[in-house]
């Protein structure tokens, strides 16, 4: 059994003039110790997907359907009280902006001890020892001193290390990291990503990494899923997708990277931009921007087909697979 299994998750935002469908039936799973990347551009629904796992989506957002099975129990059906026993304890989250996550008027130590005591009945002294141990794990220089410091006294990279230390406090099974390095400089980003990867491997923690950076996904994750307009359009082993993407959107995303183009030549570009949730196109949401779009694509959302170890939702890909089958049959 997978550690976390999301089935047909449907998340909507109730606004005037009807519901906005932020997630339209997404399904994926995460095994113990596995590292999964969620990739997509702004508005694809990757953060909503991450937040809804712990039911952290604020009103007017709500989970309209589907299941989030964590070790077999449905998180979507749990009460706030039951959920609070899981949040931060079994499943921890790391957000993009460390300054927003840390309380500016409490010392690092106070915040860490508070988080431990919310879940464990131990003495303050013991909690402080755990906090110190985690700060050492994230390789912060002079960790004892940091416990007494306030967040504003630390640099951006140091703050994100503290956030990772807090996520590790209670030995979670899953860490959900939402763009953990986007606000940081390149060299600091590399340090933090390497640290997160090392720690997840050492402690055998599963990682769900939300990012728009395909380079980071390729360095850190084993499997990835690509989201577009509230749907998963492609998922499978990271290496396989990066090397040989099937969906035209994923292909476009990879080919649009400056490192894929010849220096000085025009880059490959996907025309247009992601549709807003207010007017999602019919059928495959990518069809208005797709080179291969046909009448079929406008009518209904394509089902997933398997190509290698990758699941893709695209008529073009499924037609190609069909053709190949026919050719093989004809040959034999």
């Amino acid at each position, binding site marked *: 059994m997978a550690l976390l299994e999301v089935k047909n998750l449907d998340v909507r935002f109730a606004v005037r003039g009807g519901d906005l469908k932020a997630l339209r039936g997404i399904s994926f799973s995460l095994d113990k110790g596995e590292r999964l990347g969620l990739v997509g*551009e*702004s508005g694809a629904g990757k953060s909503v997907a991450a937040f809804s796992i712990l039911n952290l989506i604020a009103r007017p957002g709500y989970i309209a359907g589907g299941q989030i099975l964590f070790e077999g129990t449905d998180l979507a059906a749990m009460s706030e009280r039951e959920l609070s026993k899981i949040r931060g304890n079994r499943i921890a989250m790391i957000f993009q902006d460390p300054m927003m996550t840390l309380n500016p008027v409490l010392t690092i130590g106070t915040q860490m001890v508070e988080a431990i005591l919310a879940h464990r009945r131990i003495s303050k002294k013991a909690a402080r020892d755990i906090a110190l141990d985690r700060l050492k794990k994230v390789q912060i220089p002079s960790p004892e001193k940091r416990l007494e410091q306030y967040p504003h006294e630390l*640099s951006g*990279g*140091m703050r994100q290390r503290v956030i990772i230390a807090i996520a590790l406090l209670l030995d979670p099974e899953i860490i959900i990291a939402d763009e953990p390095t986007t606000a940081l*400089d*390149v*060299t*600091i*980003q*590399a*340090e933090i*990503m*390497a640290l997160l*990867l090392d720690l997840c491997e050492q402690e055998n923690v599963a990682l769900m990494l939300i990012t*728009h*950076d*395909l*380079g*980071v996904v*390729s*360095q*850190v994750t084993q499997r990835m899923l690509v989201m577009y307009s509230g749907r998963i359009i492609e998922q499978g082993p990271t*290496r396989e997708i*990066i090397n040989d993407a099937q969906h035209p959107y994923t292909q*476009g*995303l*990879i080919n*649009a*990277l*400056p*490192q*894929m*183009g010849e*220096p*000085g030549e*025009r*880059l*490959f*570009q*996907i*025309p247009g*931009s*992601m549709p807003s949730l207010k007017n999602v196109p019919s059928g495959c949401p990518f069809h208005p921007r797709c080179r291969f779009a046909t009448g079929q694509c406008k009518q209904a959302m394509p089902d997933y087909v398997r190509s290698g170890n990758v699941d893709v939702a695209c008529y073009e890909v499924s037609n190609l697979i069909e053709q190949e089958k026919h050719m093989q049959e004809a040959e034999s």
Partner: protein
Amino acid sequence: MTSPLVRIRGLEKRFDLSGGLLEQIKFEGGRFRRKQEAVHAINGVDLDVNRGEALCVVGESGCGKSTVARTVMGLLSPSAGEIEYDGNRIDHLEGKDVLPYRRKMQMIFQNPYASLNPRMTIQQTLEEPIRFHHPDWSPMQIRDKIHEVMHSVGIDPDWGSRFGHEFSGGQRQRIAIARALAVDPEFIVADEPISALDVSIQAQVLNLLMDAQESRGLTYLFITHDLAVVEHFGTRVAVMYLGRVCELADTQTLFATPRHPYTQALLSAIPKLEDDRPNHIRLQGEVPTPVNLPSGCVFHGRCPYANDRCRQEIPELIATDGGARVACHAVEEGRL
């Protein structure tokens, strides 16, 4: 060899932190003292921007790259040093004398949500610079020009009566580019023009900037933190660290054989698609504050090759055999 279009010499910029006179007075050791503090954003930068090239300035936050851009544009006045445009010094000009340069030099900012006036239609946004710089143009001429620039950035000219908020981020950045192109500039300073955009939109805007360069013969000073973009877009690259240029080279040379230890670390930190694990060069510590600059080479505190000379003497940019100019004692002495 022709003279450079923009020549920057000995540029320095300090931002005073200490406030008014009364705030500067501190009581220390039994007596009152006047204490002044400043952020040393740029500390002696020499750069030439050649005609028709795209000079990229890269570095991490706080290295002074945006300050260089703003000082060149005259949005900030330099604390020391000179800026020449086409052989004429422009950094001390005031009032009417600046105007001809303002037309030739245009700027594109990072955030298209902040750089377009929300109360103006696109038509008005594009009209304003043209009216200002060409007061003698007829309404027909202005309309044709707006039509032409909107067309060239891929925005439907019929959308002129819309407001900025009706457009997506990528479209807004196109409009900001159209506004810069409207007065037929020669030189464009682009400060992180694609950093706020999504990957697929970044490619569109980057292509647009390259097309404009080709069709209009533009010269760019391109500020960015994204080295992958530099490799694709730049003719030459200047790497900055704590207000100084530490390496200046042709793009190909820099990416093939980075010489300065900081450039090497920076290049190794870009996550690449073919990587299976992060494999960056680990630097010690963090970027020091530009309030109290380290002595000697600004990078010595984090450099694995630093010795006593690095701690005392500031390295100059020196040409190497590879064609790059590097400010590093270790490279100069052949230790690296």
